[in-house]
């Protein structure tokens, strides 16, 4: 399977990773090579293999349902680029 320019631009938008126009072709080739490897792996019989969820053979540790965190918003907002009325400010998302 190989990726074309259109797909690269689509993925770039989804991931919010800026790919310059002149680099699109090179990225398409590199990604296609990676997909090539997946295609090769697909030849392996995985019928009875459970999909791996985590490389560690361990079980999730749990915490008891108690509140352990205190309000630190002043400290945390001190490093935010912009704050108003205790809200983090970001560029407007809805017109």
């Amino acid at each position, binding site marked *: 399977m190989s990726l074309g320019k259109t797909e690269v631009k689509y993925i770039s938008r989804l991931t919010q990773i800026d790919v310059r126009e002149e680099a699109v072709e090179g990225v398409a080739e590199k990604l296609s090579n990676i997909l090539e490897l997946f295609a090769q792996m697909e030849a392996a019989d995985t019928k009875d293999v459970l999909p791996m969820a985590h490389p560690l053979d361990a*079980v999730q540790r749990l915490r008891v349902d108690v509140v352990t965190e205190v*309000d630190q*918003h002043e400290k945390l907002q001190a490093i935010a680029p912009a704050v108003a009325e205790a809200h983090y400010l970001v560029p407007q998302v809805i017109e």
Partner: protein
Amino acid sequence: MSWEVVIGLEIHAQLTTKSKIFSGASTAYGAAPNTQACPIDLGMPGMLPVLNQAVIGKSIILGLALDAEIGKRSVFDRKNYFYPDLPKGYQTSQFEFPIVGQGKLEIELEDGSKKVIGVTRAHLEEDAGKSVHGLVPGQTGVDLNRSGTPLLEIVSDPDMSSAKEAVAYAKKMHELVQYLGICDGNMQEGSFRVDSNVSVRRPGEPLGTRAELKNINSFRFIEKAIEIEIERQIELIEGGGTVVQETRLYDADNNTTRSMRTKEDANDYRYFPCPDLLPIIITDEEIEAIRATLPELPDAKRIRFVSEFGLSEYDASVLTSSRAMAEFFEKVVELTEAKDIKLCANWMTSGFSAALNRDSLSVEQSPVSAEGLAGMILRILDNSISGKIAKQVFEAMWNGEGSADEIIDVKGLKQITDTGAIESLVDDVLANNPEQVEAYKAGQTKMLGYFVGQIMKASGGQANPGQVNKMLVSKLK
């Protein structure tokens, strides 16, 4: 040619935990902005989530109530999308291995028939934050208090074929999660959110394109929104148009739905297993231990109230409409030693419910306890007060004036059962109404009601009506 409607619901039930799903920050509603968002909720680099154990039991108990398969090995995945109220750039959710698998829920339709709705799955996920617009012109404010709040997303099969069926299912699920104590069901505060996927097709044809109706916080509006959306889609197709897959918002003021944003890339969430979380393994022993704590479910309770207590279907359904209501009623029955269950049921469904409605209170907030109501019913049963006086006593109890006994005592409401006292009341009324007595004796037997009324009035409503009647009849012979 007719149309077939296909509806599936996605319900987000906020689980009743004290802390968030992956952090120790509080989930309490209504706190000042960002005071309950810790570095994990903010998605700070290097922060690692640790799963709250309470969410597992709460998910399993719902799975058991839905007769569903429990995911003995369930996995968290990252659902990737960019939005300012999601600082990590992904929502931790479950995809391929949810904690609750295929199950079912039986609903009752308007004509009394039953229909089984399939539940595809229920998976755990974290809620996102909240965007606030208009705080500063040209900018969006973000409050991350809600970020990381535990949600159980319950996805139905596309089994419903009308707005009424969809609402019946949503209501049933709403009742169930509250019975199980896993969600407070508060729709105004967003603890129980219903998204409806609606599509239409010609009978026998493949499924049509669906539109999703989001953020509707009342059952009445869900029903209206679905109805109006069905009409819109049919008109659109019959007019030669095509339905596009999108999210639509319901505008209650104009009773219309409008497009929110096209979900052009929506299906490309690029799910993959979350490397920060290990799989959850649930043993059969754990499942059985939770099964042992499963409360009696609403349907079973309703059937028992009819068979064991001899209540009507209607009374049984009102009395099991919430777990708190059912438990209150059962306590009243127990405290009155089941001497007159019908009387207890009547007081619960009329006086008590009416007072709750009038003051917009829930059963839990009732100023009259089960002990209080039972105490008053016992006084009706031992003839200390009549049903009419009981209403007065109940109001006084509701206003915090004390127990039934105290109120009866202080206000002197004890029913007059003394034969001598009743006799003198009867004699007075008969002596003062000679014409009516003549009329009665001439055959106008309905005059009896008039005399009873006069006597009750003279006694301030305290004479025992049964005794009054008996004495009148014998004196008028």
